[in-house]
């Protein structure tokens, strides 16, 4: 018997659907977005077959419309993700995440001797210097951060 699509991921009434997330990165995406939270219920589907990218993750957030600025942060780990805004079960807005030139406050510098890893009042700041593969440079200590450094960071805590 063919499984109806709806059973895999329950449709939402109002909120945001993040689709085409790189497979197995849904939990990292939630961490970046600070979800789940009090007002937003979250449904996750992981390793779903996709015609476009082989396998993907999907995140559905009931009760919260995400602003594109905050969603762009997830481009770091899910560069192909698409954003759908849902109202009354209808998709009313569609968009792609965009990698920003600067990533502020989200990442920890991999250099333990960097001033951003002290208790001085300083927020981490990285410039994206390359995208394929992803490379970021710490604005303060100029250390290069690659994909691997970033992955280990999202795995921690």
């Amino acid at each position, binding site marked *: 018997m063919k499984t109806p699509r709806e059973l895999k991921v329950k449709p939402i009434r109002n909120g945001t659907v993040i689709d085409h997330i790189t497979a197995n990165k849904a939990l990292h995406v939630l961490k970046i977005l600070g979800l789940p939270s009090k007002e937003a219920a979250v449904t996750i589907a992981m390793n779903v077959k996709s015609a476009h990218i082989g396998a993907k993750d999907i995140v559905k957030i009931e009760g919260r419309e995400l602003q594109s600025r905050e969603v762009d942060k997830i481009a770091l780990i899910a560069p192909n993700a698409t954003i759908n805004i849902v109202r009354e079960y209808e998709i009313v807005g569609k968009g792609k995440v965009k990698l920003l030139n600067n990533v502020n406050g989200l990442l920890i510098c991999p250099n333990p001797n960097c*001033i951003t890893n002290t208790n001085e009042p300083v927020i981490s700041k990285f410039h994206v210097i390359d995208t394929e593969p992803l490379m970021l440079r710490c604005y303060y200590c100029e250390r290069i951060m690659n994909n691997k450094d970033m992955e280990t960071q999202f795995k921690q805590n």
Partner: protein
Amino acid sequence: MVFDQKNIISISDFSKDDIEYILRLSEKMEPIARSKKRSNVLSGKILGMLFYEPSTRTRLSFEAAMKRLGGSTIGFAEANVSSATKGENLTDTVKIVAEYSDAIVIRHNMEGTARFASSVVDVPVINAGDGAGQHPTQTLLDLYSMKRLLGRIDDLHVALIGDLKYGRTVHSLAYALAMFDVKMSFVSPPELEMPRGIVHDLNKVGVSVNETNDIHSVLEDTDVLYVTRIQKERFPDPEEYAKIKGAYMIDKALLEDSDLIVMHPLPRVDEISYDVDNTKYGKYFEQAFYGVPVRMALLKSIIESYEK
């Protein structure tokens, strides 16, 4: 051209025009640095010096530069004489000293400190070394020394020798030299080679780099031997260290018949023998002097442009 940098944090902020501007201005500062002329362009100005990590030579060089231009200095030479030991954070100290001075020089053992300091104060900030990070005034004085001692930077063949892996001085210098039309050789033990990322960057901008473990192979063709110290801590085995160290030691006999100059950021331990000091090769004390006119040029430029 206009030199419009407010802070001197990293050599990567400099264009070739910026570097050439500072080198030209340094030349004008030289007679004042040698006490042959007098200047009061920074009269009444105060330089705040925050040396969380001791570096007598760099600190005195900045002090001499400021005083030669009629200015004065305040500050501390080590963290333990400052309030840092009482738990006051760096941010507060930097902000307070900025209230007392017209520019700040900072040296700290953590990378990124100078960039951070420049983001919390209005006055110009100069990085006098941040851990394994940047030390841009050293790089500028190295370039100025080459220009003064050999008349040019373009067309030179510069050999960087010693610890090329961890030495921040040689990393910055390699990037700065890459803006000129130079040939570079990297001479080091295999364990302390120039990081691949830097070699890659240099190749990308079209610089030809020759890498070798054998110092003899570069002597004939080189204009500048830029020597750095190989630290004992890099080698767990003391015998291995002694062997490596010996292979990269410079003495008068090694240099005989060559036509090159020897530079060193100082302080040296024993990587250059004392018998090189008074030969036509040994130029490291002159190099140390050139730090003063270069720092004068930087202080004058940033303090004057901050006032406008």
